[in-house]
């Protein structure tokens, strides 16, 4: 049985130490290590000293007074010696004596440990007061057997004792100074050994001072400790002749603080620089991360467009406006006579006609002068490079973002504490504003709901065959819809071509706008159809959203490409015309101006949709509800939900148009920036005041890679036509910076010829010969293949490791559970046997105590977990109800449990409740 008893004692020691805020895990390691290794005897001595200190409070009732007092004298004498730098002669004897003392104490403790359980609650109450706490602490000390704890504590107590002796502050520590007198007489010369020890001690104290702020103890105690440590250091530092260490350390600490403060400020500054963070946070808190993901995506898009805008604006439009030939200097820079009258009309300008068309905003305004202005700015080259750079930059950014998102996804897989983290770290203590707090509550609720949904989805099981069938059916329906809409568009485009050939004048409004109308109608109703179909599939809402996105994406893409094909047809038509009639100033590039108009009208459509579809509906529902026969708010029309898929796709397609048209209309990025800005504010407002959160708030996938992937596809598809026109269509002869050239990229050759030395041109030509380029491409292909293969293998290795980790943690859990169970059983047995023994030994007195134990343990048996006095009341889901009979806690949870100073905590934890406990109280 002694083994068990010891176990209990140990754990209770730990618990008490923690309770009294004296333990310090991190410090323990560093501070005690050197002690244990270098100055073993001292350690023992210290514990002895500590014991002495502990004892001084309970001298009256302590049974081991005799040996302790002995060692107390010796202990103090040692300190005196150190102080006076005298030699300690009887050190060895002393050590032996102490060892003996420790041993004997241990034995005693073992014998007594049975009583510890009956430690009373009111004692703990006393312990709450600091001094009293100290007292109880010291009482516990006697039984401490773990070196680390004892050492550390010992150190401290030791120091207390020392100080008290040194300064004669007997009043404070209340112990008799009789032994002190004796020890004073043994003053001798200090040895090197002692010197080293002293040094260590001083270092120790310094470290204590430095780390004091990191100790979890009440301020008063800290202050006292600090004072003592400082005095000690002051006293002995002079002797050891070094005081610089502390200063340097303080300096270092100060610098660390400053550095951290700087980092914090910088971080704040950086966060403050992110636009709309608060708006998005607010939306996220009410609508969940899925809606917020749209706004984050929008913001990201805004960033990209700002860069594109900077490029075109700074390198193309501004130079041309400042240094190019002025308006009216040549035909391409002048509004034709026929349009002159209406050129300033708002309607014309709104349509980007008139003066707007003949300005730096459009490709046609630029002329093919090789250099402009006194800077000799090579505008055509600049134009070309900016166009290529726009595309290149966009690709780079999208792909890089995707890659980093993928990394995040792979790295942050530690979801094992999902709920716990939400619970314990989601409240931001910085919040000091009622509104923010409300938002935070909303957001925490939302995030909990999201997680709960995930959890429920995980648990959901249904008829798999039915689900499969329904999914196949749904996809079949969707395919039908897609094919139908494709055919419809094909049909309409063919019809419109027929109309165009016959001349549009004979037809009415519908025939003229048929293609557009059909496309918009399809774009409006097909997503609704998909929406109706998707519940069949019974997917998790996030996956459902992705499906929905994918389907609408396919639909839109079909529409867009039909549109482009129609455009290209017209371009070809015009090219032929151009060849036939050279004087005709129809210029094919101008067809691409259409994108500008499209963008603007698209923006307008969005705004109107929001105003009508969301705002008016909300207003209607809100106010008409007062006088309506059914509940509009919860009934049929209700408020609108935020349409994530539609908005995301709108954004993506809009961006596609920008990419496609930006080369021919340098103003497009600028317009898009404005548009994004407007839609950010408008939509933020609309979402907050007209929409309601989704019925099932779900968590967006951590990265927006699905959006990104669609964006990448769109980017590729939209740059294809632009690149095609750049590379293979000869520029018009009378407009644009490349007029008169055979192909647009000839501008590079021209620059090479004129501005670079001849050898460079030769090198360039040699480098661009097909053989070299082909082999280079081959090399790149090989590199890609190699990287792909390695990344695959890394991925596999990662997966393997993850699996191993998982297995291990599972195993650990199992083992721990088993251990805990075994320990619990042992405890029970022990408890029973102890009770028996106690009954036999002390009769009625013990009965009372046992009752005390029972009553204090009772709560745990009733489902509330034991530490309900303070600190965390552990989740008491009834399923995990604990119905163990009252007993001391098992060792499993012991390292942590003890930290409650709460009264009920220590029932059964105090190792040595003196038999005369009642008297003591």
């Amino acid at each position, binding site marked *: 049985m002694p083994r068990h008893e010891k176990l209990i004692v140990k754990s209770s020691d730990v618990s008490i130490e*923690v309770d009294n805020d004296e333990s310090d895990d*991190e410090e323990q390691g560093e501070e005690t290590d050197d002690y244990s290794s270098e100055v073993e005897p001292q350690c023992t001595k210290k514990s002895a000293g500590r014991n002495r200190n502990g004892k001084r409070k309970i001298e009256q009732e302590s049974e081991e007074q005799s040996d302790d007092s002995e060692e107390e004298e010796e202990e103090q004498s040692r300190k005196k010696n150190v102080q006076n730098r005298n030699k300690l002669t009887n050190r060895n004897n002393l050590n032996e004596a102490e060892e003996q003392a420790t041993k004997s104490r241990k034995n005693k403790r073992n014998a007594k440990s049975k009583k510890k359980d009956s430690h009373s609650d009111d004692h703990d109450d006393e312990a*709450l007061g*600091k001094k009293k706490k100290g007292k109880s602490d010291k009482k516990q000390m006697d039984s401490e057997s773990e070196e680390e704890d004892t050492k550390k504590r010992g150190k401290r107590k030791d120091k207390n004792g020392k100080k008290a002796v040194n300064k004669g502050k007997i009043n404070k520590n209340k112990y008799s100074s009789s032994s002190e007198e004796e020890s004073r007489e043994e003053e001798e010369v200090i040895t090197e050994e002692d010197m080293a020890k002293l040094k260590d001690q001083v270092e120790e104290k310094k470290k204590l001072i430095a780390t*004091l*702020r*990191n*100790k*979890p103890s009440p*301020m008063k105690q*800290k202050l006292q400790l*600090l*004072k003592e440590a400082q005095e000690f250091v002051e006293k002995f530092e002079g002797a050891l002749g070094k005081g610089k260490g502390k200063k340097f350390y303080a300096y270092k600490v100060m610098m660390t*603080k400053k550095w*951290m403060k700087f980092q914090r400020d910088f971080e704040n500054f950086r966060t403050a620089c992110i636009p709309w963070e608060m708006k998005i946070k607010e939306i996220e808190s009410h609508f969940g991360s899925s809606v917020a993901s749209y706004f984050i995506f929008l913001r990201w898009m805004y960033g990209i467009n700002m860069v594109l805008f900077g490029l075109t604006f700074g390198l193309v439009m501004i130079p041309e406006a400042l240094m190019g030939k002025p308006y009216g200097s040549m035909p391409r820079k002048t509004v034709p006579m026929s349009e002159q009258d209406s050129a300033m009309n708002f309607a014309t300008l709104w349509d980007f006609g008139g003066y707007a068309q003949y300005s730096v905003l459009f490709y046609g305004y630029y002329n093919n002068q090789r250099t402009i202005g006194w800077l000799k700015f090579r505008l055509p080259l600049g134009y070309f490079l900016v166009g290529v750079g726009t595309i290149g930059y966009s690709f780079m950014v999208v792909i890089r973002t995707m890659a980093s998102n993928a990394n995040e996804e792979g790295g942050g897989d*530690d979801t*094992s*504490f999902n*709920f716990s*983290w939400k*619970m*314990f*770290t*989601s*409240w*931001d*203590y*910085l*919040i*000091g504003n009622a509104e923010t707090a409300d938002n935070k*509550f909303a957001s*925490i*609720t939302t995030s*909990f*709901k999201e*997680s*709960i949904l995930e959890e429920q989805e995980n648990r959901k099981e249904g008829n798999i065959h039915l689900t499969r069938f329904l999914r196949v059916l749904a996809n079949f329906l969707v395919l039908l819809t897609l094919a139908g809409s494709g055919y419809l568009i094909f049909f309409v485009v063919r019809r419109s071509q027929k109309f165009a050939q016959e001349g549009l004048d004979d037809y009415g409004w519908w025939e003229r706008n048929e293609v557009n109308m059909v496309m918009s109608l399809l774009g409006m109703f097909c997503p609704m159809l998909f929406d109706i179909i998707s519940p069949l599939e019974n997917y998790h809402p996030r996956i459902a959203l992705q499906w929905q996105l994918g389907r609408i994406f396919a639909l839109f893409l079909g529409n867009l490409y039909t549109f482009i094909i129609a455009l290209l047809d017209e371009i070809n038509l015009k090219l032929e015309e151009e060849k036939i009639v050279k004087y005709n100033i129809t210029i094919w590039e101008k067809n691409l101006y259409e994108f500008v108009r499209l963008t603007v009208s698209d923006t307008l459509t969005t705004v109107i949709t929001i105003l009508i579809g969301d705002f008016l509906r909300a207003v209607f529902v809100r106010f008409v509800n007062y006088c309506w026969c059914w509940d509009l708010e919860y009934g049929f029309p209700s408020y609108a939900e935020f349409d994530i898929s539609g908005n995301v796709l709108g954004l993506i397609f809009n961006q596609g148009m920008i990419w496609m048209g930006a080369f021919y209309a340098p103003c497009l990025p600028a317009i898009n920036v404005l548009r994004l800005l407007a839609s950010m504010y408008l939509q933020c407002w609309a979402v907050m005041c007209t929409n309601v959160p989704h019925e099932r708030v779900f968590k967006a996938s951590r990265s927006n890679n699905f959006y990104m992937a669609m964006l990448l596809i769109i980017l590729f598809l939209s740059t294809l036509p632009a690149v095609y026109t750049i590379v293979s269509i000869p520029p018009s002869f009378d407009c644009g910076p490349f007029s008169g050239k055979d192909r647009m990229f000839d501008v590079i050759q021209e620059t090479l010829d004129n501005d670079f030395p001849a050898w460079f041109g030769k090198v360039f030509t040699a480098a661009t010969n097909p053989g070299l380029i082909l082999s280079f491409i081959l090399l790149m292909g090989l590199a890609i293949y190699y990287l792909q293969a390695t990344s695959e293998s890394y991925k596999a290795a990662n997966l393997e490791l993850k699996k191993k980790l998982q297995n291990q943690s599972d195993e650990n859990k*199992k083992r*721990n*559970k088993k*251990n*805990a169970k075994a320990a619990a059983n042992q405890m029970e047995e022990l408890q029973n046997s102890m009770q028996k023994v106690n009954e036999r030994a002390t009769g009625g007195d013990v009965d009372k105590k046992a009752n005390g134990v029972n009553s204090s343990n009772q709560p745990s048996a009733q489902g509330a*977990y034991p530490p309900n006095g*303070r*600190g*965390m*009341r552990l*989740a*008491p889901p009834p399923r*995990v109800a*604990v119905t163990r009979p009252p007993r001391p806690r*098992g060792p*499993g*949870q*012991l390292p*942590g*449990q*003890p*930290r*409650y100073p709460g009264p009920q905590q220590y029932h059964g934890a105090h190792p040595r409740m003196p038999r005369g406990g009642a008297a003591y109280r």
Partner: protein
Amino acid sequence: MGSKQSVFTEEQLDEYQDCTVFTRKEILRLYHRYHALAPEIVPRYFNDIADIKLPLELISEMPELKENPFHQKLLQVFSEDKQDNMSFNDFLNMFSILSDLTPQHLKAYYAFKVYDLEVMLGKLTGDDELSHEEVQLVCHKIMEEGDLDGDGKLSFADFEYMITRAPDFMSTFHIRI
């Protein structure tokens, strides 16, 4: 500076600096805050002889704490006399712990004292936002996640292990003052 400095003696300031993570300026500011909470009780100049304590209700009126759903518990944890009073020492200690310079394990230690699962959930999510079943689910999940030693309880060791891995803990368990 002179008038400000006389709130504390140099020694006191040094001591407080050693015992907390604050600089002297911050300590002074904190004392002013403390003083401002109850100008009639707290003297203008600090002396540690007089045992001055403020009731927790008074302190919980601070804007930094007012909105915090856990402020009551938080203040109770740091109040040393257990009678819902707080001395300046406690006050300073609390904000020191909540400062961002304080190491994680220390914060975890106090967080463990402060947090109380069931009450937390109610406070965090408002009263009727989650259904009873959902609360049960969350509690169950948290126990499942956090209880590493499988004893059906969330011990400090479990809690510390969990919380030191939380990405947000250091930034959220933090009051800037």
